[in-house]
């Protein structure tokens, strides 16, 4: 192959201390980072893991987040003076601690603790995804709680006076309104989550950053692998922001103007 020959020639010049023009140098480093030994496949593999990790962590985060937000909203919206449900109180307190601890400690630290103190498992990527999901759940729960609390109290009163019970009012009246309001923040959280998967490399999770660093290690040239990874993250985020934008527009169709 022509390019390969070109690469070998110029690399030999560079190694023996000769001067390359900047674009020859650029070509050698680019080739080294992406083409030689089919290294682009490693980026793809890493991107795959990154996407799977994001999807699983997001799923876990949303389930956890909805659960926590429901309990906390139900607790906070009890009427003052009314006898409070003791079970709700206890669960609420537990969830409050969960949110405080997870939001109050750095993600990287949490991942290290999950991997080396709690699980001590060899499934580093899975442990990492679990850690991300737990972390995301805390943030998502606060976003959802904010959305639910923001829906005017009159909506709930109207629903209840029409004879719907609490859950039905939530399901048909409050949640749909809240969902539309929190979608931008949820999208934000999703994008942050996608990028935070890069932290999995700290506990040896084999995602995009891990492979980018591995490739950089081979020749001590970090710049091109890092820029490559940056471009991939950026493209992914742009695609997902676009999809989220579409969803938002779709949800707005029923709005009266």
């Amino acid at each position, binding site marked *: 192959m022509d390019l390969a020959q070109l690469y070998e020639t110029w690399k030999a010049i560079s190694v023996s201390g000769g001067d390359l023009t900047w674009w020859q140098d650029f070509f050698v480093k680019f080739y080294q980072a992406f083409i030689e030994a089919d290294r682009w496949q490693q980026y793809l593999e890493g991107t795959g893991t990154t996407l799977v990790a994001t999807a699983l962590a997001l799923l876990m985060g949303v389930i956890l987040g909805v659960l926590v937000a429901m309990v906390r909203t139900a607790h906070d919206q009890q009427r003052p003076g009314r006898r409070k449900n003791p079970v709700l109180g206890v669960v609420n307190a537990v969830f409050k601690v969960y949110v405080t601890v997870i939001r109050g400690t750095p993600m990287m630290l949490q991942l290290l603790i999950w991997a*080396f103190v709690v699980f001590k498992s060899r499934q580093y990527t899975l442990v990492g995804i679990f850690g991300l999901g737990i972390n995301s759940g805390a943030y998502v729960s606060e976003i959802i709680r904010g959305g639910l609390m923001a829906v005017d109290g009159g909506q709930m009163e109207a629903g209840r006076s029409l004879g719907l019970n609490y859950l039905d009012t939530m399901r048909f009246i409050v949640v749909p309104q809240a969902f539309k309001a929190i979608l931008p923040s949820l999208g934000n959280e999703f994008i942050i989550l996608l990028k935070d998967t890069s932290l999995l490399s700290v506990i040896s999770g084999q995602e995009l950053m891990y492979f980018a660093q591995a490739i950089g*290690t081979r020749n*001590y040239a970090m710049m091109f692998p890092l820029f490559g990874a940056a471009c991939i993250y950026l493209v992914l985020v742009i695609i997902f922001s676009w999809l989220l934008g579409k969803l938002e527009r779709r949800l707005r169709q029923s709005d009266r103007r």
Partner: protein
Amino acid sequence: MKAMKKLLAVLLTLGLVFALAACGNNGSENSQTPSQDVTTSEEPAASNEGGSTGDYGEFTTIEEGVLIMSTNAAFPPYEMTTDDGSYEGIDVEIAQAIAEKLGLELQIDNMEFTAALEAAQSGMSDMVMAGVTVNEDRLAVMDFSNTYATGIQVVIVKEGSDVTLDNLGEQLIGVQNGTTGWQFCSDQFGDDHVSAFDNGITAVQALMQDQVDCVVIDQGPAEVFVSENEGLTILETEYAVEDYAIGVAKGNEGLLNAINTALAELQADGIIQSIIDKYITAE
């Protein structure tokens, strides 16, 4: 009161502007790569600016009178942090000796291993000393001094484990991010058999908890890790032998020659050997 607030706001804004301006200045100074310095050092005026002349030829450093060394101080006994936040180790003392020879003050920047390499390449530090080994691919992106120590890659296992060099390919191997150990192992056994961690200590921690079957790392740190952690042992057969060198930005020949000259003198005086002996006691 309102006027006071306004005044305060104006002052704060001005402060911010100046802070940003200062950043800009710094940036342009830093972006002056050493390779450019070398070309300008042909002129006598420029050579006096950030370097010195003498037995070591003309060379320039990023900051006048200072030799900035980037390293990853989690690699005992070559470099490690002390309790008061300074650094010690074989590389640190050799760097100190080189700096003294060159009439410079040594400044150490501690960071991740890969970042330390990148710092030297991009002109944020004058040199990287972190048990760096030379291979051909790496020569394409940076220059290396003559070697000052021999690095041996060894295998740490748990006592009583049946891991040997022959069945290494069936194990999960822990390595340090950015090291040749990582490179060799993933080339030889594939990524599925290798787990890379940010530093050797994390890898050893994983080994202690059976999260990996063995750790491949340089001998110096390996011996420290084994002596600090009970139940670990080093396999007698070496995994690989290589040479440590100092990395500088590509094309910075002035500094490279100065470092090589200083290294040769230190080697002739036996100072390097005595530094190594101080940290690695012969068995």
